């Protein structure tokens, strides 16, 4: 049995990640079917987001056990967690105000800044991580994952843009670039972790 399989559920990052995913899915369905209002939906989303705290704890514990943890990663995780809460709060407030109040152009611009500022905070957090990480291998991995995400967003963005130009697909908002890049970065990390595991299976890793 693997080490991960021996861990109780509440200590597995996948358990909390699945919890967030399922909760968001259920809330989205309830919103789409008008079973709940936007305010209730927002409150439920914030409650669902609280699972990010145990997810972070479980992830840090797992990284510690696999030898991937550094002080810079701990700082990065804390900052990113804070920015994520800021984003949820900013987005919720912005959407709630925009739904209820007739805004001028300047007011709309200021409202748009509410979710933008925390996203800028996330980008700053990632930049700080690359500056603060003293372990060159972990820094190398983070850069490779960023490039993986960048490649993904450039490919998808360019492809989608031309499909949109020729009216094959509908228009999508430009703010999608950041989540798509972040997902690509996550996939890059998974791909490298799999490569690590394969290499260690062949050579006999010490845990």
């Amino acid at each position: 049995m693997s080490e991960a399989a021996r861990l109780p559920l509440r200590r597995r990052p996948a358990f909390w990640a699945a919890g967030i995913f399922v909760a968001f899915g259920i809330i989205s369905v309830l919103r789409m079917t008008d079973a709940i209002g936007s305010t209730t939906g927002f409150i439920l989303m914030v409650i669902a987001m609280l699972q990010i705290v145990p997810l972070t704890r479980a992830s840090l514990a797992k990284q510690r056990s696999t030898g991937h943890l550094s002080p810079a990663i701990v700082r990065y995780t804390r900052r990113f967690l804070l920015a994520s809460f800021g984003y949820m709060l900013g987005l919720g407030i912005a959407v709630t105000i925009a739904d209820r109040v007739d805004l001028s152009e300047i007011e709309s611009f200021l409202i748009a800044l509410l979710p933008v500022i925390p996203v800028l905070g996330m980008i700053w957090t990632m930049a700080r991580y690359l500056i603060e990480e003293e372990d060159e291998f972990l820094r190398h991995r983070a850069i490779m994952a960023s490039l993986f995400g960048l490649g993904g967003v450039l490919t998808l963005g360019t492809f989608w843009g031309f499909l949109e130009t020729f009216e094959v697909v509908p228009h999508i908002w430009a703010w999608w670039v950041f989540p798509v890049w972040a997902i690509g970065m996550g996939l890059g990390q998974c791909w490298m972790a799999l490569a690590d595991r394969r290499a260690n299976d062949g050579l006999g890793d010490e845990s």
Partner: protein
Amino acid sequence: MKNRLKVLRAERNWSQQALAEELGVSRQSVNAIETGRYDPSLPLAFQIAEVFELTIEEIFLRD
């Protein structure tokens, strides 16, 4: 790049974690260098050589 890190470490009875702590890097870094998945920078290679009291050429071999 090939290296003799695993053999040298075994000769001294050092774990990956002990070597990582000595070098001030993560255990995963030592693992990646040992398995040839990551070539260290020159400063880290010098640091590794210093820890083993050998020259870089005695640890890292050309492909």
